[in-house]
């Protein structure tokens, strides 16, 4: 079963072509890594998939649904979740509240102007539990602004997972983390079951390479190389792209 199918995706900003005829197929349960030098268009590709940017041409399909014209917020309801390169969570709110929001986004409760959020036991419990699962249960009531960068990264991933996604897009989840923190995040990702398909953008080869089943290499808005780990690493074009820079 195909989790994500992208066909001939095109996007230009003025004269700058950031996506050129991208074809990408990710199978359900797969662990896909997207790499490429800066400016390759990787994050833009994610934004095209989530619907934050509208493509000029081509299509995006999530499992059986064509989501090309679908507004971004509805894609979340179809099981698409994403983390960002720059963490943009809610710094003045507690970790618990951040997680509550990610649970709320997919719940009918979010429209309810009378239901007291603090009294929603089921939601509160699930939020605390998810924080505990990533080892942050003890600081659930701390404001996000008072946590470390690594802790925030984990919160962000936990929030994405709280959306019970079928496809999870991770944009440089290891960026800016210490060695210890990388190991923690790596361990967290290993616990994600295979009914969640993961597509990751990463720069740090050491951590990412052994995570991926298949690797896609992008350059200047195009997919240049794609295949299993060994093939891609051996491919001369890969080296050219990275060393030729």
């Amino acid at each position, binding site marked *: 079963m195909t989790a994500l199918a992208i066909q001939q995706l095109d996007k230009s900003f003025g004269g700058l072509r950031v996506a050129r005829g991208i074809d990408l197929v990710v199978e359900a349960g797969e662990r896909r890594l997207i790499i490429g030098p800066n400016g390759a268009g990787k994050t833009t590709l994610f934004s095209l998939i*989530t619907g*934050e940017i509208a493509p000029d041409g081509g299509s995006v399909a999530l499992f059986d649904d064509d989501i090309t014209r679908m507004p*971004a*917020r*509805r894609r*979340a*309801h179809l099981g698409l*979740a*994403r983390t*960002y390169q720059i963490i*943009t*969570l*809610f710094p*003045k*709110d*507690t970790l618990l*509240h951040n997680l*509550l*929001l*990610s649970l*709320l*986004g*997919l*719940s009918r*409760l*979010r*429209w*309810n*102007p*009378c*239901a*007291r*959020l*603090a009294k*929603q036991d089921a939601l509160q419990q699930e939020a605390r539990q998810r924080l505990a699962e990533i080892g942050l249960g003890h600081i659930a*009531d*701390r*404001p996000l602004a*008072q946590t470390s960068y690594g802790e925030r990264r984990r919160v962000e991933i936990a*929030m994405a997972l709280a*959306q019970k996604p079928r496809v999870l897009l991770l944009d440089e989840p290891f960026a800016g983390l210490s060695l210890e923190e990388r190991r923690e995040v790596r361990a967290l990702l290993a616990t994600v079951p295979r009914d969640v398909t993961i597509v990751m953008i990463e720069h740090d080869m050491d951590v990412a390479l052994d995570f991926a089943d298949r690797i896609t290499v992008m350059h200047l808005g195009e997919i240049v190389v794609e295949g299993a780990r060994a093939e891609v690493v051996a491919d001369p074009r890969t080296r050219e792209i990275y060393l030729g820079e």
Partner: protein
Amino acid sequence: MKRVGWAVALIVLAAVPLWVGGSFYVNIVSQILIAAIFALGLDILVGYAGLISLGHAGLFGIAAYTVAILLEHGFGHSVAIIAALGMTLATTMLFAVLALRTTGIGFIMITLALGQLLWGLGYRWIDLTHGDNGVSGTSRPMPFNISLDSADHFYYATLLIFVAVLIGMAILTGSAFGASLRGTRDQPRRMTALGFDVWTIRFIACVMSGLCSAVAGILFFYYNEFISPHALALSASAEVLLMVIAGGSGTLLGPVAGAALVVIMKSVMSAYIERWNFTLGAIFVLIVLFMPEGLVPGSRRLVRFLLAAAKTGRGAAPARSGG
């Protein structure tokens, strides 16, 4: 502890006609409550949705004018009030659809223009509104056959409505929808990615805000038995916005404090301080410089600081609690 505070406040407010010293002052408190209702409604947008509106006096005014004009043409109070609520609701929805095309400064500009549109109509559509002369009323409604003519009775009616609005705000801000709204203020992009419909959330906030403005406008008309275009001018929109910001946007009591500040300055202090407008302006500038988050949060911070300093015997910076 908090509950005791609320209970005391309620008792104090309920007893106002007894201790405040004459119907002049009872009327002042009525004015404060009406302004507070208006400010609380605006705060839904400013403090919770993060959208600054400089045109809210237009919504306030259209409610007041609808009641005034319908009464003048012989309709009863119930019809006039319901029509005013409906008219304001419709206008708010139209304005929201237009204004929500932008955010930030664009939203400020477009709400200013929309407010000016309504002001212009009030000022110039003389056949309907008598222009600068305004529209007068002659009677107040009589709910359950109780007359509201006296200052005390009108005050109690206003107090009841104010308490209802305040309770409504408290419920709203603590609710799941309230959390959704605040989320769209802080990180709209992230909220969309989480599955929230940011536009619709903001639209609903606009409608709620418009409803409060309508209630305030209707009360305002009955209080004065008069409405003129002056109530829709840019300065009126600016004034209610200042009440919210100076008092502390995004808090329950901030708009109330701001309303009290402005009304007291205008109605009471103007008798003692000749340059009260200047003083009010200076207070606003000082608030921005020293308590930029507003009077209520700023005072809380000050009190906490003083308490902590008293406890430890030396200055201690209290940690900011979450939320």
